[in-house]
């Protein structure tokens, strides 16, 4: 069976059911407009140019905030994984900050950066960085020590051991971490745009709610979902190409071969 087509089918069925529920007024279309009208509304806003400017603003913030978080957390996570004493020393600090949900940072972000891109990017960064650092640190601590030993005996110094052995070892985990981090970034951007900026998908949605334009609210949700999915597909594509060597090492292959026996 063709998997992309299957996926499309699931989405189409979902939209069909939604359309039906709304059209026969099982739920008031004012509260749940049918997807077709959301799509039409999206087209209208697109032609007006508003939509692209909102989407562009959100996308810019997500990508920048997320890339900053990666650039910061990858080296720090690896470092803390290799130096558990430093990690232990910093742990109380990390644990104090970690439970603060990204929206809890919004007031401070606005005080510091004012209304605008910087505040939103800060929220994304702060909302993703702790989980990424902890995840990458954990992955680094659990790599196969003997592989590093093999590399060292072949003449690698510490720096090369990190680049040629530690990083490839944690790569499969880093990709998972990236996908989780990206989803978190979208959550953060929408939340922050609802208060801290005057453009972006979140702003569009909160404004639409104030004017009781349910279509626009749903449109915003659909766009976040679609963009998140799209970028996730891109990461998965890169993952697939980078981690080609894991083919033949994954446990699901065992179950699959068992089923065909």
């Amino acid at each position: 069976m063709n998997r992309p087509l299957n996926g499309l089918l699931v989405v189409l069925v979902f939209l069909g059911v939604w359309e039906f529920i709304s059209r026969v007024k099982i739920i008031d279309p004012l509260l749940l407009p049918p997807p077709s009208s959301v799509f039409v509304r999206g087209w209208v806003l697109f032609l007006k140019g508003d939509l692209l400017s909102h989407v562009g603003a959100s996308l810019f913030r997500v990508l920048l905030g997320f890339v900053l978080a990666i650039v910061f957390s990858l080296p720090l996570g690896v470092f803390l994984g290799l130096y558990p004493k430093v990690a232990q020393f910093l742990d109380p600090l990390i644990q104090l900050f970690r439970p603060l949900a990204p929206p809890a940072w919004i007031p401070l972000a606005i005080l510091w950066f004012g209304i605008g891109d910087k505040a939103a990017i800060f929220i994304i960064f702060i909302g993703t960085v702790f989980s990424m650092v902890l995840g990458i640190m954990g992955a680094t601590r659990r790599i196969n020590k003997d592989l590093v030993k093999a590399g060292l005996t072949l003449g690698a110094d510490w720096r090369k051991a990190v680049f040629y052995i530690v990083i490839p070892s944690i790569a499969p985990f880093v990709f998972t971490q990236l996908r989780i981090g990206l989803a978190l970034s979208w959550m953060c951007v929408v939340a922050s745009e609802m208060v801290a900026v005057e453009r972006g998908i979140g702003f569009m949605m909160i404004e639409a709610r104030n004017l009781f334009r349910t279509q626009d609210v749903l449109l915003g949700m659909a766009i976040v979902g679609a963009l998140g999915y799209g970028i996730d597909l891109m990461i998965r594509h890169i993952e697939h190409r980078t981690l080609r060597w894991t083919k033949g090492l994954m446990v699901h292959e065992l179950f699959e071969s068992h089923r065909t026996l």
Partner: protein
Amino acid sequence: MSFLKVIGLCKSFSNQNGRLEVLRDVSFEVERGEFVAIIGPSGCGKSTLLGLIAGFEKPESGQILLEGRPVKGWGRDRVLIFQEPLLFPWLTVKGNIEFGLKVLGIKKEERRRRVKELIEKVKLEGFEDRYPHELSGGMKQKVALARALAVDPLLLLMDEPFASVDAITRFYLQQELLRIWKDYGKTILFVTHSLKEALLLADRIVILSKRPAQIKTIFQAPIPRPRENKLQELALWESELLKQLES
């Protein structure tokens, strides 16, 4: 002056159950180009001895001299080959063999040439682009050997490298190791728990006692090379030595 000199090596580990003495005053010498087997009961400290020479452990007292210079930390002049092949799973056969050359910063053409030569040497033509998990245990160990030879070490330290392959594969690997040893003239220190393997491969055999390991005896391998087709003689010597060791 000897090529490798191990002088009065002592080592113990401490854990919650107290102190565990592993090596007690171990001394021996190895000449350049020699193939020396180290043999002893399992858990006696053979691997610890190799780890000390490789530089991954520090001796409590005693000294290790390679070409007259004291050994400090690990280095590619003493490459360790483990019981598990420990290939890098994200690199192909070619990539694994190339690893040491790459970290050394050797140019691409030169690397390619060396890798090609080594692949022919260990007879892995046609498997260059396979990943480790696509290889058999014996092939993996051959890649590990080629990967070690690539960095041109002074000393090959082999820690029961053929212990986890089947008897037939082991026989072939032993033949190939001997061939490579002859071709490259490397000095090999080979830990094994099999007396037969030691008798087949080595010039000299170091026998360690059970823990704490002390040197029981060192002797010249009694059977002249080539020995591959002298299986009966090997078996006779094996039982003879076993008798001697028990007494």
